[in-house]
């Protein structure tokens, strides 16, 4: 019974915690500019993330190691430092985007410029990490994140056509704006397969002391949690396509995205969008800060754990403190939060092979995984999607930069 409750909570928190600033920004842009035609990108990213999250949970359960810790041991410091540095840099950019998302939500609500919220928001994230336990951080914010289900409800209120929706799952180049279409597609994939997600999940499995009896529940949580979660991400595309595209509104700033729920819910739609943006970003900011501090601590062999008091894991606490401070400074500098988000997501897709490929090697190493090594099918699916996304990103990013100048 306790395990069943755990699985249910795991699935519910995966749904509530799925949406973050990247998913909201990329999906809103996609729907407003290209209608349903980028739904396939969310599907592709979701298939890959289900495999990666399941693998990261299974890896920690069977080997007793976290991914970062094992990559360092298996490949040595020289082989580890490049993916480690790249992941930390991208985590920092994404964390700045998440904090920026919360600040923009507060700006939409109060009219006070988003930069002025950077320090109070950074402080709020830090205080919660300093005083709360892992369960509060993981479950609390994700349960609040269920407010994002409003996007799903909006689809029924606005009335989407099932046949047109189904066509969106077949990749097809639009008649114009090929470069922008490609850029949004890789940004969506980057937002869906964020490396911090499976690094966090792997450390979480150790924090929660998962043993071998969790192998099946882990598979269940990864599959259903991520699948249902991605439906919300798809719902953002559909709602933007239904509410913004017919009006001729393209999402270049959050001020435009904030209109997407108004046709469905009236004045409440505006407040629901602001709440969804703020809560989704707040939850993701907590996870990102922790994932980055986990990575640094595991890389250097420091004491780590959100369930430990800060004085028991001082360097771990210092790591997330530093990360939050740096990210808050980036927001304070006034960089456009929407542009920062889109580029962070596209860069995420570029660096994916750096973390995913060494991880795949570990998943096939019987010294770590014993009889639980990966199947060929899992290897091929992850390998194909990760390499395809990285190649698309390398092509799309320069084209987007040239096109937007």
């Amino acid at each position, binding site marked *: 019974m306790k395990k069943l409750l755990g699985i249910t909570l795991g699935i519910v928190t995966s749904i509530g915690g799925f949406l973050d600033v990247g998913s909201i920004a990329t999906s809103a842009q996609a729907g407003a500019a290209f209608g349903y035609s980028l739904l396939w990108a969310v599907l592709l990213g979701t298939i890959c993330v289900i495999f990666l999250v399941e693998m990261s949970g299974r890896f920690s359960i069977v080997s007793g190691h976290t991914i970062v810790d094992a990559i360092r041991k298996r490949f040595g410091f020289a082989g580890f430092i490049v993916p480690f540095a790249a992941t930390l840099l991208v985590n920092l950019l994404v964390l700045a985007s998440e904090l920026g998302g919360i600040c923009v939500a507060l700006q939409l609500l109060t009219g006070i410029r988003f930069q002025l919220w950077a320090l109070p928001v950074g402080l709020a994230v830090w205080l919660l990490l300093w005083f709360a336990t892992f369960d509060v951080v993981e479950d609390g914010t994700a349960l609040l994140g269920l407010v994002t289900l409003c996007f799903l409800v909006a689809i029924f209120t606005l009335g989407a056509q099932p046949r047109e929706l189904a066509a969106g799952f077949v990749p097809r180049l639009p008649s114009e704006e090929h470069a922008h279409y490609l850029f949004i597609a890789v940004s969506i994939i980057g937002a869906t397969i964020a490396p911090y997600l499976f690094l966090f999940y792997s450390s979480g499995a150790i924090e929660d002391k998962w043993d071998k009896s969790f192998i099946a529940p882990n598979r269940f949580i990864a599959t259903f949690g991520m699948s249902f979660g991605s439906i919300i991400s798809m719902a953002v595309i559909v709602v933007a396509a239904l509410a913004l595209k017919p009006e001729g509104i393209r999402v270049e700033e959050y001020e435009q995205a904030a209109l997407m729920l*108004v046709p469905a819910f009236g004045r409440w739609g505006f407040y629901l969008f602001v709440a969804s943006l703020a809560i989704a970003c707040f939850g993701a900011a907590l996870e990102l800060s922790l994932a980055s501090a986990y990575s640094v601590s595991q890389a250097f062999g420091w004491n780590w754990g959100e369930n430990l008091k800060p004085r028991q894991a001082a360097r771990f606490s210092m790591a997330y403190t530093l990360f939050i401070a740096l990210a808050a400074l980036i927001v304070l500098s006034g960089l456009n939060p929407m542009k920062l988000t889109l580029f962070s997501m596209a860069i995420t897709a570029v660096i994916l092979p750096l973390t995913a490929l060494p991880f795949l090697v570990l998943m096939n190493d019987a010294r770590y995984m014993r009889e639980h090594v990966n199947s060929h099918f899992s290897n091929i699916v992850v390998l194909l999607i990760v390499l395809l996304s990285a190649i698309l990103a390398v*092509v799309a990013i320069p084209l987007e930069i040239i096109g937007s100048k």
Partner: protein
Amino acid sequence: MKPWAFALACLALCACADQQEQELKRAASWSATALAVARYWLQGDLPDTYAKHALEKASEELAKGPLPDASEPVNEMIEAIGKRDQLAMRRLIADLEKR
């Protein structure tokens, strides 16, 4: 020239050619945003603070785009919100829709 480099150069050229069209689309999108914000505000579906902020953003974006004159009616909309003048807002919406 290698085929992949040629393909990349062609794509880059297309991206540059799209640039002017993109700017016009951007201006049209901000005009549409201003119109939607004004309409929703009139229906009571948006709080004043957000409506004013969104219109200020639209005006700023339109002023630096290819059709800077398009920001003038948006500035008048901001004034109408400040005075809570629904009649003036109705007139401005009608004007903007005609364009």
